[in-house]
């Protein structure tokens, strides 16, 4: 029953980075969390090796999957990581304790988000280099578009993580409560297999998953082809990628709006007394 109804906006950058540094230190000390958030992506990179050389949708299969992973890592480094962090901090009473300082709510939560984002961006950078070095990738055709998709993904999955933490009673149960979103996004966002193989109706409904638009935007920006259309994606000219991705951005924005409302209702600062 505690908390502001809407998430507050006031942000002090100095305080924000101080919280982020605390979060980074805590993540470093908690090796299990560190492995899940940072180690899992390594396994996924391994999966790319056998795909190298095959072609899907007119591009190298390893690159297609690899660019999907750029988006997919959001699930570990941002979504699952933050859902666990928020739940743990709430249950061990430290969220409430931090609220007793000069820190605002936005800085307390934003600090955790910032650390998760830095971790995620580091993974993105490493994977981007690996794609170039080992799989014949290249610099993104429209890096700004790719980054915009990634940024939208961070916002949506950070908000979703705060919703999930609100309905998760204990840290241990986070592993369970994140599963629906994790599974749906892993299976249905076009990372594990191209959505083109599915019937049109299913394809369209899977585009409504929160990760799908991120995958579409990242790939469109990376390859310079319209990856919102399935099959062999047509090349897009300068700025054409943005136009093609408008529906994807719209879906992301809708998710952000819904998740924000849900978070304002579900997020809790007080440990549950059970």
């Amino acid at each position, binding site marked *: 029953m505690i908390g502001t109804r809407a998430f507050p906006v006031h942000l002090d950058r100095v305080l924000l980075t101080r919280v982020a540094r605390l979060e980074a230190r805590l993540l470093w000390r908690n090796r299990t969390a560190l492995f899940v958030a940072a180690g899992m992506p390594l396994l996924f990179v391994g999966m790319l090796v056998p795909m190298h050389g095959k072609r899907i949708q007119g591009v190298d299969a390893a690159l297609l999957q690899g660019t999907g992973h750029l988006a997919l890592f959001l699930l570990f480094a941002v979504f699952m990581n933050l859902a666990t962090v928020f739940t743990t901090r709430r249950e061990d009473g*430290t969220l409430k304790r931090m609220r007793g*300082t000069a*820190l605002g709510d936005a800085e307390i939560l934003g600090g955790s988000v910032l650390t998760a984002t830095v971790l995620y961006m580091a993974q993105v950078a490493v994977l981007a280099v690996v794609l170039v070095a080992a799989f014949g990738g290249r610099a993104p055709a429209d890096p700004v578009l790719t980054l915009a998709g990634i940024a939208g993904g961070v916002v949506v999955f950070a908000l979703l993580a705060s919703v999930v933490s609100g309905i998760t009673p204990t840290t241990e149960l986070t592993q369970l409560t994140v599963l629906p979103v994790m599974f749906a996004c892993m299976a249905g966002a076009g990372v594990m297999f191209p959505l083109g193989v599915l019937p049109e109706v299913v394809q369209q409904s899977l585009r409504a998953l929160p990760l799908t638009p991120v995958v579409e935007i990242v790939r469109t920006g990376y390859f310079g082809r319209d990856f919102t259309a399935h099959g062999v994606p047509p090349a897009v000219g300068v700025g054409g990628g943005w136009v093609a991705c408008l529906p994807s951005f719209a879906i992301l924005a809708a998710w952000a709006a819904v998740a924000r409302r849900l978070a304002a209702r579900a997020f809790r600062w007080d*440990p549950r007394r059970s």
Partner: protein
Amino acid sequence: MENTAIRVRELRQRYGEFEAVAGVSFEVARGELFALLGTNGAGKTTTLEAVEGHRAAQSGEVRVLGRDPYRERRAVRPRLGIMLQEGGFFADLTTAETIDHWRGFVEDPRPRDELLDLAGLREQAGVRARQLSGGQKRRLDLALALTGRPEVLFLDEPTTGMDPEARHATRRTVAELVRDGLTVLLTTHYLEEAEQLADRLAIMHRGRVVASGTVAEVVGGHGDRVRFRVPPDVPVADLPVLRGVAAGIEVDAGHATATYTLPPDDLQPGVYGLLRWADERSLALPGLRVDNASLEDVFLSTAGAES
């Protein structure tokens, strides 16, 4: 500057159907230490959390330093120090690291060493929070609440779980801070703590304040007691009336015990009257004793009686 640091008027808080705080009012002046006493579940923590701005007042008014602590949290919080009844720690951080991070979260923090000394944890500076003992955690809690040099300090059972020495040290620390002008709102189950520290106090029971005032006022209303066993050959009806107060009689296993409850000012003349009465009759009064009312008596009769 307004002289009232905390004002609570007709505060009510419910959890679902259950009304945990049912119309509580009190004021704490600047530089004063106010203690909230009461049975388990009386609503002390709930009241405190409303005053700290951790939860909105559902009904009634709460003002801290002239502002609404919930709605104007951003403005009020930096001036408050809060020690929760159950505060969590980052289990993997050491005492010193915890304090260092905390110093980054407030304006004008106290130096780390001063805080370690306040907590008496200099030797535990390198120990991780998860390895601190219960009492040591409580002391670190206090140090964290004091990091930002607060004007108003909230202490929810600050000395619970501490050994007598630590409890003593903590009380001394708090008393010194109050002497330097700090305002404190504290809850405790140790009545001697309230007796020792509090300028004023309130006793809560089932969501209501059942007694409040200075220790002397609260205790004074309950009177001092003169007690003795009624000698077997004295009829109860012959016992004297002291300063207008008749004896209360309890019979236990065939022995009658007489108790006079006298207002503090009537104690001495009352006792004198009784002794003269006994002297004139050459009576011995077995088990004669005079007890000042203690906070404990008041507590038990107001809060503890029905539960």
